[in-house]
């Protein structure tokens, strides 16, 4: 008597195949606009994998920041620089075959490492179904403020949070300045 299908596993394989297939499509496609679209789908499928691993807040942030923010930025970049001769820049066949060979070797090593540890094989079905489903947004917020409610013996992340905040401010100011200074110079020349 076969066991009933465990649906989270089905969804894992569905989204894993979507993520991997579109990542491969990003590599193989030469058209930059299509690459951006495939990347959106791959990152969204990765967000679904985050949800399936119980990381609901990180999955939501992945959708908001990556798919909603970073990729819009990338697509603006594509639109600002997409003249006809840059939309499709082919890689030579020799380079591509060497790259695929090297990539296959790297992938073989990584997969071998991933399957060779018995502890990483996953829970039994009964144990997995017995685990409670915990929302992670509140513990993550407390962890960023320096108090760890989930593991009191581990340290919080207040300092890193502050450093990253200031870093983001500096980086965004710098990026705005970089993109703006060039316009002034070119208008002065022209």
């Amino acid at each position: 008597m076969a066991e009933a299908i465990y649906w989270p596993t089905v969804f894992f394989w569905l989204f894993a195949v979507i993520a991997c297939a579109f990542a491969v499509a990003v590599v193989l496609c030469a058209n930059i606009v299509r690459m951006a679209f495939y990347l959106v789908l791959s990152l969204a499928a990765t967000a679904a994998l985050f949800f399936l691993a119980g990381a609901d807040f990180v999955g939501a942030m992945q959708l908001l920041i990556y798919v909603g923010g970073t990729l819009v930025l990338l697509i603006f970049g594509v639109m600002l620089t997409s003249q006809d001769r840059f939309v499709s820049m082919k890689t030579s066949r020799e380079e591509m075959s060497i790259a695929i060979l090297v990539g296959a070797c790297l992938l073989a090593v990584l997969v071998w490492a991933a399957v060779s540890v018995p502890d990483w094989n996953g829970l039994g079905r009964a144990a997995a179904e017995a685990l409670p489903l915990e929302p992670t947004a509140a513990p993550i917020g407390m962890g960023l403020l320096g108090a760890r409610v989930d593991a009191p013996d581990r340290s919080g992340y207040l300092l890193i949070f502050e450093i990253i905040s200031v870093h983001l401010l500096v980086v965004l100011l710098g990026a705005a300045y970089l993109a703006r200074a060039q316009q002034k110079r070119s208008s002065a020349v022209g």
Partner: protein
Amino acid sequence: MNVLILANLFDRFDLTQPVGVSHYLIVGAVLFVCGALCMATKRNALGILMGIELVLNGANLNFIAFGSPYLRSDANTLGLDGQLMSLFVIVLAAAEAAVALAIALNFYNSFSTIDVDRADQLQG
């Protein structure tokens, strides 16, 4: 040895059992390799940027997998540390994309090309 590993690999495709950390690691490895190849082979600067995003996503997937309590039988998970790390990676990737895009636009404005093979002014 190789046959054993292949059999081990095919054992994993079982729809009646929960997935484990190694499944996530395999997906992360595929994303990482795709990103690395993208960075190595694309000539468009924005294509290289997309490769970097893929690599960071593969790393994020590994962090989440090692932090999740639902994926492994022992209790040695990273816990919330994994999720916090991947949040930091996501935020820093956004910052990196903004700067890289500004640099790419500057490069495009000065050289009227986005082909990184043409960015050879610094060679000796």
